[in-house]
């Protein structure tokens, strides 16, 4: 049911875990639906210097988290903002239709983390 890419990311993901003193944290999803994703980012010189995730969820949720992190790491913050759920899913060679919501979660997680970072930059502590 899952692509090879999805299973690789699920099995071998190394991007997980907390970043202490992250510059932005995005917390999305809820336990009712079974998927919760937290995205941590560290920003240096307008670029995402480091990123990690913590995810409670299914194979697709973990794989999209992992892929999303790969995709934003090293990117300028504003380019990271433009990453769509479709792009994440495509990078994983697709997701089963009923799992597309996981890629949406990944997109939302990135956006929330960057928003949080921007807020803090505006002097608004998270």
């Amino acid at each position, binding site marked *: 049911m899952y692509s090879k890419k999805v*299973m690789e990311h*699920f*099995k071998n*993901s190394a991007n*997980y*875990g*907390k970043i202490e003193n992250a510059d932005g944290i995005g*917390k999305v999803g*809820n*336990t*009712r*639906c*079974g*998927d*919760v*994703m*937290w995205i941590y980012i560290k920003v240096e010189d307008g670029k995402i210097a480091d990123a990690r*995730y*913590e*995810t*409670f*969820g*299914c*194979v*697709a*949720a*973990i794989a999209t988290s992992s892929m999303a992190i790969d995709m934003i790491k090293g990117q300028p913050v504003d380019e990271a903002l433009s990453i769509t759920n479709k792009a994440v899913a495509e990078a994983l060679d697709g997701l089963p239709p*009923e*799992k597309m919501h996981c890629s949406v979660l990944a997109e939302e997680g990135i956006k929330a983390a960057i928003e949080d970072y921007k807020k803090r930059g505006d002097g608004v502590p998270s």
Partner: protein
Amino acid sequence: MELKYYFDYNATTPTDPRVVDEMRAYFSDNFHNPSSFYRRAGEADYAVETAREKIAKLVNAESREIFFTAGGTESDNLAVQGTAYQLKEKGNHIITSQIEHPAILKTCKHLEKNGFEVTYLPVDKNGFVNPEHLIESIKDTTILISIMHANNEIGTIQPIKELAAIAHGKGVLFHTDAVQSTGKIPVDVKELDVDLMSFSSHKIYGPKGVGGLYKKAKVKITPIIFGGGHEKGLRAGTENIHGIVGMGKAAELALLEMAQEEKTLRALRDRLQKEILAKIPEVIVNGDTDKRLYNTLNVSIKYIEGESILAMLDQQGFALSSGSACSSKSLDPSHVLLAIGLKHEDAHGSLRISLGKYNTAEDVEKLIEALPPVVERLRSMSPFWKGSDGPG
């Protein structure tokens, strides 16, 4: 038979090779239509009736009270729809429980759209229907009570005898879905005193595509499949002879071997439970730990999600199931786990281990070895695990 690490016997079982042997003659040789006139048809008819007797013996019924269907789902539908339509002039109220199999629940939902009223009794944290609740729910219009015998997810075994007695005290028919209990534990229709009882072949090492309904001789229900008058008019369609013969053989073997299996599997299951609780912190055992199918262990492994656990274990060759939404292709986790009061995240994080006769002690040791590192890795990815803020 490559059955290493299969722990999903409540979902389905492999057909016992002795059952396959018994069926072999009924494909290309004794294939005749039992209702035809010639002698070879008589042999097919005899094979069907012999199977009926074996099944009757397993559940202590009369042969003529056993009716063949295409599986547990059809039996449940026949019992519930058949009673509802038969007695619709008498009343329109049906009582069932919140933890029934979808074969009952979806049938009830369908009937609700067609003028029937259904009460879904809640269960307590161990999965038991409260007899007091049942008594209070019965109305003048109640025509059927359908409560499952053993639950497929958590294994809880209901006090069917007591519940059926309550039904009969009020003149109401009682059906039990015994798909998970028949062939695993002693099931005696006379002792339980049920009017209708469903069972299925593929849960007890028989072939798929065949099941049956026990119907007390004096109880009348309407068929749901009409045609050539097979099964005394209760279920039409050319008999699935090899399937019926296979289920008969499976019933015969179950009766002979049930006691021994119970001993072996209970010990394996208990060991699994003990070791999992010892090796993995923050695990909840779901279902009643006393009145429970001896082969079933349902646990919630906190802070992680079931499909991920299944996937990691699948990589190592283990086949299990989960009550998580993801593994069931719906958005909600198991209705059974929610009904016993689990939080959504704990229901999502559940694992059902159901053992069967081809499981070995080695299988069990391997699972005991494999599970803790899987849990550890997934917990290390989880925002809710130690050091995190806990579930949001």
